[in-house]
């Protein structure tokens, strides 16, 4: 079920009503309702996906209890390994099997050996598998490290793994943050719920107006890139840059907003990343739940930034390469990860990777010239990276970049739709104004937000803009991951 569909518009109020008016007296009932709703939400795509998520949940639930019942280190390690191998095994089969087989065949072909590829599987990738796999893994690892008490409450654990607002595209919630919220009675908070509604509205605007419209033009340009001038190819890369941000952060906004309606608090997943002054800052602001997951479960266990410079470099490359591969079974994602690692290197070597922690130009309307230059150059590097992310093959990405920097770069670009360009610029402006807030529509303590009339006019305008300018309905990009 897509957030931007009529199905969801009907589904959400029904669940909300049952949750607060029918099951409100009993915590277990509320959790059961959330679990059933989540399975309906997920099964809406394909009911067969449910088998995998139920198996994965049951395995980690069982491993958690088994870890609690034994203090033998060897047994505990084996239990952890079972969870890691089975979870990553599913991911390997459903997501990476064909990729590895094809790459294997390609390597042999390169050296002149002809191998018949008969092993490729015809399997459908279950939506959001990478998200819930990482979520369940975090539970087992945290229980193993005794950072978290395992749960004996089957319904709570299953509801945590499948919690519908964030099931298919995050934020990837750690058990340590989300699971305990299933144990305590939820109270309805007016301010939280109202802000949740605002965040949902802002997320819908990002997804349906910015992302879906940018997608139309980005797809056209990337699919026919040989027919366009260098300047238009750059416009295409910019369209994709805003598409992926608005699409993914829009999903996160809706997920966080919907969770708030049910009394849950999810972690922030995006913090205006395109206003970053360097790549390190970008990665602290982009897909925060994944970045911190890799930091805590890959980078730090590998030694983190302790040890020699060589270890730091190795760990950084490992994290970025794995992060690239997490996004998809294609060499383009691996190269994208590699490029980001290379971008990161100068900061790491000069020990400047934690230089820009504060929000840019905090308390000011405009950035300084230096900040503007830093922001623009970082943005440019990100755009180049996204070309690899969007391209079908690595060679296509190189050709695309090559064509951007050809003579035709000086031709007048095609912008396709002036309306969408203007709306996108307006969106960037609002994001800039709101850059120290949680989301673009957080109106507390703002001039316009102080009056109900202006607030409601803004909401109405946004609703009509969504209805009027929405692009053709497209799935959220990150579902495929």
């Amino acid at each position, binding site marked *: 079920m897509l957030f931007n569909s*009529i199905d969801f518009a009907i589904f959400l109020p029904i669940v909300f009503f049952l949750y607060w008016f029918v099951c409100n007296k009993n915590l277990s009932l509320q959790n059961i309702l959330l679990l059933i709703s989540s399975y309906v939400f997920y099964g809406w795509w394909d009911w067969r996906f449910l088998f995998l998520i139920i198996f994965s949940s049951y395995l980690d639930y069982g491993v958690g209890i088994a870890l609690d019942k034994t203090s033998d280190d060897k047994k505990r390690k084996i239990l952890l390994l079972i969870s890691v191998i089975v979870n990553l095994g599913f991911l390997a089969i459903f997501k990476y099997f064909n990729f590895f087989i094809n790459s294997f065949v390609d390597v042999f072909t390169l050296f002149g050996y002809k191998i018949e590829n008969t092993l490729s599987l015809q399997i459908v990738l279950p939506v959001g598998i990478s998200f819930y796999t990482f979520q369940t893994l975090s539970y087992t690892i945290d229980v193993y490290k005794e950072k978290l008490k395992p749960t004996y409450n089957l319904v709570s654990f299953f509801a945590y793994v499948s919690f519908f607002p964030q099931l298919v595209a995050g934020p990837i919630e750690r058990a340590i943050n989300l699971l305990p919220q299933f144990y305590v009675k939820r109270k309805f908070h007016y301010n939280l719920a109202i802000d949740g509604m605002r965040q949902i509205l802002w997320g819908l605007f990002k997804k349906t107006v910015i992302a879906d419209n940018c997608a139309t033009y980005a797809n056209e340009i990337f699919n026919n890139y040989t027919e366009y001038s260098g300047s238009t190819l750059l416009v295409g890369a910019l369209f994709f840059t805003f598409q992926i941000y608005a699409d993914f952060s829009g999903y996160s906004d809706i997920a966080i907003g919907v969770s708030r309606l049910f009394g849950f608090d999810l972690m922030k997943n995006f913090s205006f990343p395109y206003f970053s002054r360097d790549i390190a800052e970008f990665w602290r602001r982009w897909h925060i739940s994944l970045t911190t997951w890799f930091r805590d479960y890959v980078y730090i266990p590998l030694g983190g930034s302790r040890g020699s410079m060589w270890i730091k470099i190795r760990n950084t490359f490992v994290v970025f390469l794995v992060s690239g591969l997490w996004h998809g079974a294609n060499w383009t994602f691996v190269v994208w990860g590699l490029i980001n690692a290379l971008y990161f290197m100068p900061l790491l070597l000069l020990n400047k990777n934690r230089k820009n922690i504060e929000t840019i130009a905090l308390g000011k309307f405009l950035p300084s010239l230096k900040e503007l230059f830093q922001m623009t150059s970082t943005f440019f590097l990100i755009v180049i990276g996204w070309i690899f992310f969007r391209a079908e093959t690595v060679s296509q990405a190189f050709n695309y970049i090559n064509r951007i920097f050809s003579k035709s770069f000086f031709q007048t670009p095609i912008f396709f739709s002036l309306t969408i360009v203007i709306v996108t610029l307006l969106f960037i402006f609002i994001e800039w104004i709101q850059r120290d807030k949680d989301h673009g529509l957080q109106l507390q303590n703002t001039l316009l937000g102080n009056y109900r009339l202006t607030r409601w006019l803004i909401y*109405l305008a946004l609703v009509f803009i969504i209805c009027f300018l929405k692009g053709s309905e497209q799935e959220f990009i990150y579902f495929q991951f």
Partner: protein
Amino acid sequence: MKKFLYNVLCFFLLFISIIMCGLLIARTTNPKNLYFSLIDKHQMLQEREGPRIILVGGSNLSFGINSKLIQDSLGVNVINTSVHAGLGLKFMMDDVVRFIKKGDIVILAPEYEHFFGNTFYGNEPAVNTIIAIPETFRFLSFHNWKEILGILPETAVKNIIKFGFSEFNRLMGVERIGIYDRGSFNEYGDVTAHYNMKGEDFKPPLGITGDFNDETIKAIISFRKRIEHKESLFLFTYPCLMDTSFNSITEQFKMVNFKLNEAQIKIIGTPQRYSLNDSLYFNSQYHLTKEGINIRTNHLIEDLQENTIFMSHLKNIKRE
């Protein structure tokens, strides 16, 4: 919770009120608009005597057929029921079937878009037609509802903007005779208002988005059965389409042709036959100029005359 529900409800009611205003503006302020033309077409269907040919489709027919030419050539009354492709093919077929009389020849010519994605279920014009003629409400299926609910706000806003412009023009004393008005149709149901106008400079859209919609074929089969049940003849023909657009949908028209043949639909002509030179189009890939209309109509007449089923049916109904 009470405060939250109260605010959400108030906002929702405000939103609905604006939509209702936007939708009703179309009905109360402009009974001359395109969507009311279906009333005139219903009247033609009720009053015109047989033998008759009834054309069903989108604007490829309203802007693409000279019904008088067909009537003069074949000696049967012709009623062109087409208004807009956005009514949705399902809506058009359900609307017309109740007027079919024994012996009628129904020729269906939907746009290619009706076979892909959700165009089959209709969009904005369907909403405005329902507002103009509320009795057509009953043709909405559950799927139609789902499609139409999503476009209500957009339709309302467009109506409000159009209303604003028309009021502005009225205040300024500017009377515009549009080609998308109820008055742009002649007594056969063809648009003729653009006959003496210069064609517009426009870029035809390339390709068609969306997957093949099998519901379209199922609905056409069901429509054929309902027509044949009334002892009438059902035929299918292809829409006229600009060469440039046509060349961009090679795979799609082959698919349509294959599916129709598979369903054993009686087809008049071929897709290629009705793909005409770009210079013959007025302001859209389906809207022909007067010259284009005559070429397309002559193609259709020739194809009908070569069709033995049609000719024998025609002979029979003329005899009766």
